[in-house]
């Protein structure tokens, strides 16, 4: 088995601030994902990466950057936090794009 570790667990930022979320996986999976989860809206894909140094935009990429410098890590940057924004960001990984996905426990973002 393996584990996906997301840091920090909770993140409070100020409006306009640049915020970075980190994710590490020890499954040795090629593909990694960042999803945003809002109440009532399910999971929306922000960025994904099929291998080290690869980046692909999802449906919700505007306002975010991502980085995959190592196979085991995938970071997400909120380029300018929006006031009153509250969401959970989930990192995930999978062996391939069409197989089951394994999730971390999430980072809860609050912008004041």
């Amino acid at each position, binding site marked *: 088995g393996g584990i996906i570790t997301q840091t920090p667990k909770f993140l409070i930022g100020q409006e306009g601030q640049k915020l970075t979320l980190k994710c590490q996986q020890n499954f040795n999976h090629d593909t990694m994902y960042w999803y945003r989860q809002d109440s009532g809206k*399910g999971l929306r*894909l922000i960025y994904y990466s099929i291998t080290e140094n690869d980046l692909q935009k999802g449906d919700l990429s505007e306002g975010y950057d991502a980085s995959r410098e190592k196979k085991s890590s995938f970071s997400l940057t909120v380029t300018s936090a929006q006031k009153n924004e509250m969401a959970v960001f989930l990192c995930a990984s999978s062996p391939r*794009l069409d197989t089951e996905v394994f999730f971390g426990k999430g980072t809860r973002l609050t912008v004041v």
Partner: protein
Amino acid sequence: AQSVTQPDARVTVSEGASLQLRCKYSYSGTPYLFWYVQYPRQGLQLLLKYYSGDPVVQGVNGFEAEFSKSNSSFHLRKASVHWSDSAVYFCALSARDYAQGLTFGLGTRVSVFP
């Protein structure tokens, strides 16, 4: 384009009763299908998956799901629920010609009362 619909946003059930959660999908081919569960303040955990073969698949904690190609459905069932089954359940689809991984439904929140 593919999609997943979970028609019930919330389901309330008594402990010991049976549970069925509905999932309908739209995809022209034969998809891979998944059910995930999310407990409070946790990520999503895989309950079961269907790739091919027997349309009834068994998962963890007594859950099973049945794939129906004719109905484009993948309903989840449990014969007798426990209070600890209170969670949000997500159905997901993998369309093998879709380059962005899984497509998720909006989830069904299940509340189990004693």
